[in-house]
């Protein structure tokens, strides 16, 4: 089993997957002839070469798999990985095909289920409470005020809700990504200050220590710095709080 989790095998699979995706999404691009190449000629060529290389990497990884390093430390944590993947996929599908409310309900329900089967351990009631609150408040804001702000609110509250196990490896990646996405959602509708607060707060949760006073101080310093550098120094056209300054 371990061979299939080695860095080499998985990267081979990744290259093949990218090649297939390029072929699929480029299927309508005309190949043309070698004299007058169409827009699809070079992409197809690249995709095929990449898939061959990916195959070589993956197959040779299976034959020399003895000393392979595992790419992810998932040993004994299979249920968690599968459960979280299924939950995320279900929520995304609900959001894409039903409605934003269905997605939020899906998030809240998955939080509840994941907490009770001990995949997101910690204070269960607090986790679920925060997640449900995030979904409800986010949903209301989404409908009444602004869609982007609504999504940002639910993201922030859900990020706060998750009680990461201390040895969790996914936390930094999750927090950093959610932080940037929240920033992107808030920046144009609310201005720099609210998006700055959201980003710094969420990104600080990704570290191994979180002290509220420090984070607040960091926010104050960064606000002043950003106003000086971007607004005054580089005179960019951005508002600190939308409609106010």
């Amino acid at each position, binding site marked *: 089993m371990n061979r299939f989790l080695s860095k080499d095998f998985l*990267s081979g699979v990744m290259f093949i997957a990218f090649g297939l995706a390029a072929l699929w999404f480029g299927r309508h691009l005309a190949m043309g002839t070698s004299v007058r*190449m169409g827009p699809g000629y070079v992409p197809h060529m*690249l995709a095929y070469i990449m898939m061959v290389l990916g195959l070589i990497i993956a197959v040779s990884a299976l034959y020399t798999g003895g000393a392979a390093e595992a790419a992810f430390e998932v040993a004994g944590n299979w249920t968690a990985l599968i459960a979280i993947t299924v939950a995320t996929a279900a929520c995304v599908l609900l959001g894409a095909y039903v409605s934003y409310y269905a997605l939020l309900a899906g998030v809240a329900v998955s939080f509840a289920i994941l907490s009770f089967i001990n995949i997101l351990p910690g204070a269960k009631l607090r986790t679920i409470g925060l997640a449900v609150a995030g979904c409800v408040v986010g949903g209301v804001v989404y409908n009444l005020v602004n869609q982007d702000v609504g999504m940002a609110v639910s993201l922030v509250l859900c990020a706060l809700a998750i009680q990461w196990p201390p040895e969790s490896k996914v936390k930094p990646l999750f927090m*950093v990504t959610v932080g940037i996405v929240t920033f992107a959602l808030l*920046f144009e509708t609310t201005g720099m200050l609210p998006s700055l607060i959201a980003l710094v707060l969420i990104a600080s949760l990704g*570290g191994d220590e979180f002290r509220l006073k420090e984070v607040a101080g960091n926010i104050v310093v960064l606000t002043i710095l950003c106003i000086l550098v971007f607004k005054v120094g580089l005179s960019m056209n951005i508002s600190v709080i939308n409609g106010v300054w």
Partner: protein
Amino acid sequence: MDLLGNLVLGMKVALSLQNLLYALVGCMVGTLIGVLPGIGPVATIAMLLPITFHLPPTAALIMLAGIYYGAAYGGSTTSILVNLPGEASSVVTCIDGYQMARKGRAGAALSISALGSFFAGTVGTMIIVLFAEPLTQMAQKFGPSDYCSLMALGLVAAVVLASGSVVKAIAMVFLGLLFGLVGTDVNTGAQRFTFDIPELSDGIDFAPIAMGLFGIAEIVSNLERKSLRSGAIKVTSLWPTREETRRAVPAAVRGTALGAILGVLPGGGPTLAAFSSYTLEKKISKTPQEFGKGAVEGVAAPESANNAAAQTSFIPMLTLGIPSNAVMALMVGAMIIQGIQPGPEVMTKRPDLFWGMIASMWIGNLMLVIINLPMIGMWVKLLTVPYRFLAPAILLFCAIGAYSLQNSTFHVEQVALFGVLGYVFSRLGCEGAPFLLGLVLGPQMEEYFRRAMLLSRGDPSVFIQRPISLGLLIATALLLILMALPSLRKAREEAFQEEEG
């Protein structure tokens, strides 16, 4: 003489108040990130790319170049004083530099490394001046097929000299080339891989990819690691003794020579140069047992080598438009953002930019000696700032910078997406640098390939009929064959293991 006239022109540009200021800013930022462990020059330049968009082209490139060689200086300070390499090219300096510091010779080690770097930087700049013109003239004779082969050689050589698995790195180059094709096809106007997103029709912007792959991914992996800190050693006298000087000077000269050569090679650059020159010093030394216990040569040689290589790695980028490592790929990206197509035309069309940048390198090196030696205490204090303050700040600058590129939050979301992708790459042991090189060269390479095939009426033998192209392709093939030889592969693996260990 023409050369002198060019240098005078360059000095005029570089000495203007604005450019001096940006050179200073670049050197300061470079030293800062060199001192701070966990954030290297590639990530910093990637994250500052959007800001350069708001500056005039010459100032932007001068600042980015300053960051690059400033990091090489700053990294050595922490290597010597706290045994923490600020960035990859100063890892070897830790070995003997920290031992010297423990013996009470911290000041001497610092000044040897700073003066050695300055000497190397001066020589490196002179080499650029001498070689820029002939190389550019040669490059102007190149036809489309020659260019295509040259790019192939550049990409393959970059892969061979980089660490890690060669097949994976080549696959990463192809993935980068593929990402470079996103957008409107220049020849037919067809939309390729744009998914009906209007922002993608001009191609994926280079800056968000670079920020995500290098900046965000680096922050995430730093947050995963538990931070370790150790106390800094106090600096007493800055002056080396006569004996130390006698040993340092020849080592610095050898390091400079080796570094200058390795810097020009594709895939070379400061890190490779530093490691090779340390190995060389150890081999030719009469007292090899002293290495690892505070040998002066072990500080002087790698520090000169990494700086010489940092300078000469500009040569292929400036004259041919072919980046030899990730930092140079970012410089190419910065030029493209400014609307300048890198290549041999830069020197003839924008002599002020070309020579101004070269002259500013020497000025920047001088500034760095001044910044570094008297202000060492201040830089060391910075080490005490915990990473949990820095990470959100860096992310914030990234996000605002990405937004400011085109005032669109779509770019910010792209940064997040490529951050995740960059994390996956690093987890799978796939390096980002070959991807970036492919991405930068992709559109041009396709253009030259299609033009060459059109001119030859679809006959691929055009690539082996022109002598320049044939020569370049033979060199590419030789490199690939060399890599497949078992004995060589083993030696290469051992060399890289030494680097990691």
